[in-house]
């Protein structure tokens, strides 16, 4: 992965991530989030994690965000009217986020090993679908089944929640 | 009163819908195949093939003025057609016939006879009402033009389409 491509996709992810927070219009926010996720998927692929990258596109960009858009459109959420911004609260929120950012930066810059280059892989292409599958089904079989039950519970919950109460 | 439509009870084969879909596909494919093999009769290909030879005698096409055997315009500018015309497509300016003329007895002739073919609805009322049998609906149906002015048939044009009509009542020729 050339540094050029890395910075393009990193900037894409970050700029559109910031656009999610800044945009007033919920639809614009959701679409910015889609672009941000696509950039993130490219970053995953730059780390040779093709399976995770494509799952990211498939699940997040293809399904989750369509669901978000569907709900935004179904509820017909308009752009928020420009209400008076509470400057004190906004400044406080930004300050807290910046402090968090500073802490993360200081931690990362103190990690000595983080400056080392990535070690080389066994080959140019690693069949990571097969390897992830092997690890998932051998070492994480029980958690995998628990996640399956969780998804089932979520499905039942969603059906119950979205049912209109009979009047 | 609301009528409750009882829906037919479907058996399992009908409920599967697949046989019905396959039957439908077979029907459409039969049509497709027949057209490719040239067995289907398709509609007439208009600009190449035309109705011209096959038009029935009662066909109502564009109206036209006719002359009689002596070359006289049969129209006497009575303006009945102008009054009867439902879309008011006809406009006639009557003119006196000179007393020295052979047909001076007729008194009037159309100085201008315009039919606006944009308005004409080919109803044939003008032909019905004409006491002189001067206007007939001919077999032209493809009337085109680039401007509105092109679409107005003037007297010369109408006479050109109409030509000479033989064998109709010739009451003006006998006298004088």
């Amino acid at each position: 992965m050339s540094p050029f491509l890395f910075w393009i996709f990193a900037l894409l992810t970050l700029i559109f991530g910031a656009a999610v927070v800044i945009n007033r219009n919920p639809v614009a926010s959701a679409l910015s989030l889609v672009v941000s996720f696509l950039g993130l998927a490219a970053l995953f692929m730059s780390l040779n994690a093709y399976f995770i990258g494509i799952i990211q596109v498939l699940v997040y960009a293809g399904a989750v965000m369509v669901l978000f858009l569907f709900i935004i459109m179904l509820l017909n959420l308009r752009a928020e009217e420009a209400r008076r911004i509470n400057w004190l609260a906004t400044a406080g929120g930004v300050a807290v986020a910046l402090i968090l950012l500073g802490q993360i930066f200081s931690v990362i810059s103190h990690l000595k090993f983080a400056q080392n280059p990535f070690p080389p892989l066994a080959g140019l292409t690693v069949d990571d679908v097969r390897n992830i599958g092997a690890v998932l089904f051998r070492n994480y079989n029980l958690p995998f089944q628990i996640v399956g039950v969780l998804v089932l519970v979520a499905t039942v919950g969603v059906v119950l929640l979205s049912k209109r109460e009979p009047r | 009163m609301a009528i409750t439509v009882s829906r037919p009870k479907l058996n399992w084969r009908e409920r599967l819908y697949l046989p019905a879909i396959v039957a439908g596909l077979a029907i459409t494919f039969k049509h497709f195949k027949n057209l490719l093999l040239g067995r289907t009769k398709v509609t007439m290909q208009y600009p190449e093939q035309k109705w011209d030879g096959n038009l029935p005698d009662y066909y109502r096409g564009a109206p036209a003025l006719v002359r009689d055997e002596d070359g006289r315009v049969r129209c006497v500018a009575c303006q009945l057609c102008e009054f009867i015309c439902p879309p008011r497509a006809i406009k006639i300016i009557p003119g006196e016939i000179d007393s020295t003329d052979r047909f001076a007895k007729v008194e009037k002739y159309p100085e201008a006879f315009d039919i606006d073919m944009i308005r004409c609805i080919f109803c044939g009322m003008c032909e019905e009402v004409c006491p002189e049998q001067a206007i007939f609906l001919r077999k032209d149906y493809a009337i085109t033009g680039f401007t509105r002015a092109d679409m107005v048939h003037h007297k010369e044009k109408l006479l050109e389409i109409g030509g000479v009509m033989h064998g109709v009542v010739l009451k003006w020729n006998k006298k004088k």
Partner: protein
Amino acid sequence: MITLGDYLMVSGILFAIGFAGVMLRRNLIIIFMSLELMLNAANLSLVAFSRFRVGPTGLPDYNAQVFVFFIITVAAAEVAVGLAILVALYRARQTTDVKDITSLKF
């Protein structure tokens, strides 16, 4: 040369953006999206670490990637439930603004 540190920085900034979104915005659906942003920032760190810890066989550490897989699965379920709650809330209150939803009971 791109190092692990760069990926972690990107991940950290993304997390801070998501955090700021949760703090600053009042629209529930935007808050929800910011949460997703934070989850994905964590995913980026995990995948970067996975690529950094190459084992003796020359393969990345797939435990982290399996973890990301679980996070994505659970996040999808979470979104479905969360949006269903949001729709139920909108039906009851006709609003998605957190300022208007301050009481526990309605």
